[in-house]
């Protein structure tokens, strides 16, 4: 693996990003523009809007995000282990088995705590 292997990836970034950028700029110049204060209003099914949407929302979404960070990290830990599994053999199986048990206990704990309930 050489740094130059990533040059084509940067090329893809440029091509895809360029397409998106050009599309946005082109539609900015091509489309009609008619400003009207009522049209520029927030859409709430045609009725005057009530309050602001910068308000509070269910804590559940926050909880899911926190759980995600923990579990995703644990999955990331497994990648190097999985790639080298054939050379690690039984030792690898035993160590990762312990890790998986801890992971499962954590999942069961939050399950019983009701962190996964959504109602």
């Amino acid at each position, binding site marked *: 693996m050489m740094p130059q292997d990533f040059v084509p990836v940067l090329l893809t970034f440029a091509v*895809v990003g360029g397409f998106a950028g050009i599309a946005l700029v082109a*539609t900015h110049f091509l489309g009609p523009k008619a400003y009207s204060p009522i049209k520029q209003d927030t859409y709430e099914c045609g009725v005057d809007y009530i309050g602001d949407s*910068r308000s509070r929302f269910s804590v559940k979404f926050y909880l899911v995000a926190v759980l995600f960070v923990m579990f995703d990290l644990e999955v990331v830990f497994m990648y190097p282990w999985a790639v080298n599994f054939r050379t690690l053999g039984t030792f690898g199986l035993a160590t990762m088995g312990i890790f998986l048990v801890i992971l499962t206990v954590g999942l069961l704990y939050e399950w019983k705590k009701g962190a996964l309930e959504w109602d």
Partner: protein
Amino acid sequence: MPEIVAFLIEKTLVTIFVFIVVLTVVAFTTWIERIVAGHIQMRYGPNRAGPKGLFQVAADGVKFFMKEEFIPDRANKVLFVIAPTFTFMAAGFIMAVIPFGDRIMIGGREVLLQIADLNIAVLYVLAIGSLGVYGIIAGGWASNNKYSLMGGLRASSQMISYEIAMGLAIVALLLDHGTLSLRQIVLNQQGAIWHWSVFSHPIGFIIFYVAAFAESARVPFDLPEAENEIVAGYHTEYSAMKFGLFMFGEYVHMVLGSALIATLYFGGWSIPWVTAPEEPGLLWGLATFAVLWIKTYFFVFVYMWVRWTLPRFRYDQLMNLGWKRLIPIGVVNIFITAALLVVFQHLGIAG
């Protein structure tokens, strides 16, 4: 010609070729989806613009460009403009590592029908693929609309939940292949048809496929844009090309996700029982290229089929399926796969 210049020219041509092919396929997928929907619901679907309605794609494209660019007064302007671009780019960047075909020889030069054969390709796909959620949540929040905010929150929650299940399914696959390079994974699956990973990892495949459905936010996981609850979810306030980029991003995600499923579990570009010729020419390249797209399109078709067949989940059912079913099954699947591999190793059976 110095090697570095030849390398740059080769890679630029391959990149542009792949980009154009993907974009064309994605554009026609929007048309095919409506034709499939029409036939499933016993009606014609688009058939006015051009023969069989084929020019519908061009008509839609022109309309995206010619519509008024609309930004609500109360929106956060910068984020509102950046968000759809971000979603589209996160979906499109995945094409960089997908092996679209084998190596071919052109004028004594070895050309790989893949933009970049990274040795961390699987990690790259997961990392870039998960960036799409930023565009959606930014778009939902920046619109300053309650429906958009709800859609954005739902989308982010759903996507991050199923990302874990997807990661676990891939770990089980990596135990077997022992590499993160997608090209190497395809090479491992060459030969007889039962060398395809789907036969050795059926549970992992099911988890991955369900998670891929949820990641692309399509029926039955389309709660982020459930139109009878929250209008159009995170893209309620979007119009013209900014909406177009959101929609295009979704289709790119679907097509490249299907290509990834074909690559990881169904042998990618490899043709069962056929080995690469000694001197792989353009014909071999086209054959492998076509085989990958046939496999990919089968999964794209299943996406459409499911979309017009199944109803939508409720949000608690969606979360239960992700956290209480797929993740435990994924963990158990890893452990069983690892244990079986160790047993096979001791018995001296490879693979």
